[in-house]
């Protein structure tokens, strides 16, 4: 209640304060609302326009072209990308399954050679 009275008193003595508050809140909303309008309508319009002209060039039906508004969500794209990644990297799934032993022939093995050990001291 005291605060309310103080605010009323404030109105009496300092009209600039109320101007700052009213204009301040108004301008913050107005600025961000303009950005909202721009990105909600103007940018979307130009992106859709570009997609449609691209479709016309390729001989596709523009109405069937995916517009910016109906683009898939990032989650769907992430799921598709993950599936592709797993598919392309699952190399073990396509192995032949044939196990071979490669025979290595060696003319000389020094593991038990006294002469070799002596000369390599």
């Amino acid at each position, binding site marked *: 209640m005291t605060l309310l009275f103080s605010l009323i008193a404030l109105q009496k003595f300092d009209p600039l304060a109320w101007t700052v*508050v009213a204009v301040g809140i108004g301008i913050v909303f107005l600025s961000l609302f303009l950005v909202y309008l721009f990105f909600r309508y103007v940018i979307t319009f130009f992106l859709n326009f570009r997609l449609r002209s691209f479709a016309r060039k390729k001989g596709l039906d523009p109405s069937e072209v995916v517009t*910016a508004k109906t683009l898939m969500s*990032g989650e769907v794209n992430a799921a598709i990308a993950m599936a592709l990644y797993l598919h392309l990297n699952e190399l073990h799934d396509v192995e032949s399954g044939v196990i071979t032993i490669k025979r290595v022939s060696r003319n000389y093995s020094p593991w038990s050679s006294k002469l070799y050990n002596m000369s390599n001291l």
Partner: protein
Amino acid sequence: MQNRRSYTIIGILVILSLAWMAFVKPEQERKKLSAEQGIESVVSASVEQPDKQGDGKFTSGLRKFWEYTGFRNATPGHLIMIIIGLIFIFLAIKYEYEPLLLIPIGAGILIGNIPVFIEGGTNLQIGIYQEGSVLNYLYFGVMKGVYPPLIFLGIGAMTDFSSLISNPRLLLLGAAAQVGIFITFLGALVLGFNMPEAGAIGIIGGADGPTAIFISSRLANGMNILADGTTVKNLIGPIAIAAYSYMALVPVIQPPIMRLLTNRKERLIRMKPPRVVTKTEKTLFPIFGLLLTCFISPGALPLLGMLFFGNLLKESGVTKRLAETARTSLIDIVTILIGLTVGASTQADVFLTKESVLIFALGACAFAIATVSGVLFAKTMNLFLPEGSKINPLIGNSGVSAVPDSARVSEAEGLKADKTNHLLMHAMGPNVAGVIGSAIAAGILLSYLG
């Protein structure tokens, strides 16, 4: 865990208040009384005495050494500030409350409150307020508002505006939360601050440390002279500390308000996943965002100009090196400097005042009001939105620009209501909109009160 943290913080605040009442207040009253009675301070007398008494050189040397030590020059205020600095460091290490800020600020408080010999106007060029000292040069960046735009450049280079572009209506939540700034501005006027000081205090409601420093360095810097001949107080330290403290306390302040203002049904609202945003849109956002906002509020140019410039560096895709530097090395360097110097500027004689207590109280109100207005505006928007496009009001709190802490709070509260409902990506929209909104509000305050 959350309760324990709250009790710790409340306990610390109570201890500090008691310490202030017990030590600083009597000391201030004693000084005031001495000044009134024209009694020379005991301290200055002891400085002059050695030569008069003709002590030996050895004793005189020892006495001189003692007079220059911190132990000799310490006041209870210094000790309280050192305890506050230690608490900041403790909170950062123990609870990881904004450690990147609280560690430099805490260390700065310790550095700034080492008592130095200042009697008789001696300038040892050590303290932050002593002309010619290294700290004084570094503090120049705060006083002249150099650091905040550089921080904004880094923030721009690390921010992804995709969630905002995919659902632009979330911008309005960022605007709604700025109501806290202006209500706090009125509150500060009611409590007796003058207009520029009230404007600087109000910006705490924007929950943006760099913006708070920027505005207070312009409006409440202890240098500006008002039309009636009075000089504004230097409130940079208290305002910055209050802003950063409350930013760190976002996980404590916001959740109770959010739960109070929403019902279970609202907390369970699932929002549509954001659509894919094209590279063109991301590149156009900083360009048109800058033009649209700064043409309306040119006062916000230093902050918004740098924010959008940083974002353009990131999104253009051709200046990767510059973007990398802005979001890593540059912002790290500036964060160190700003944290340290703001901390060091809180010298006991400047910080431990009645104004600081009021600023802290107003700051808490500012955060609460900003959260309330964000949540209520989200609920109001839901009245007009069709089913399927509704907004979960738990993201309304993210309109305050404490990035990304308030978005994390939305996520945590959303998960408490429904373990599968992730709100983080949606909350990031209003969160970055809040950064833009608080910068615009700062610009308006500057243009009226600067």
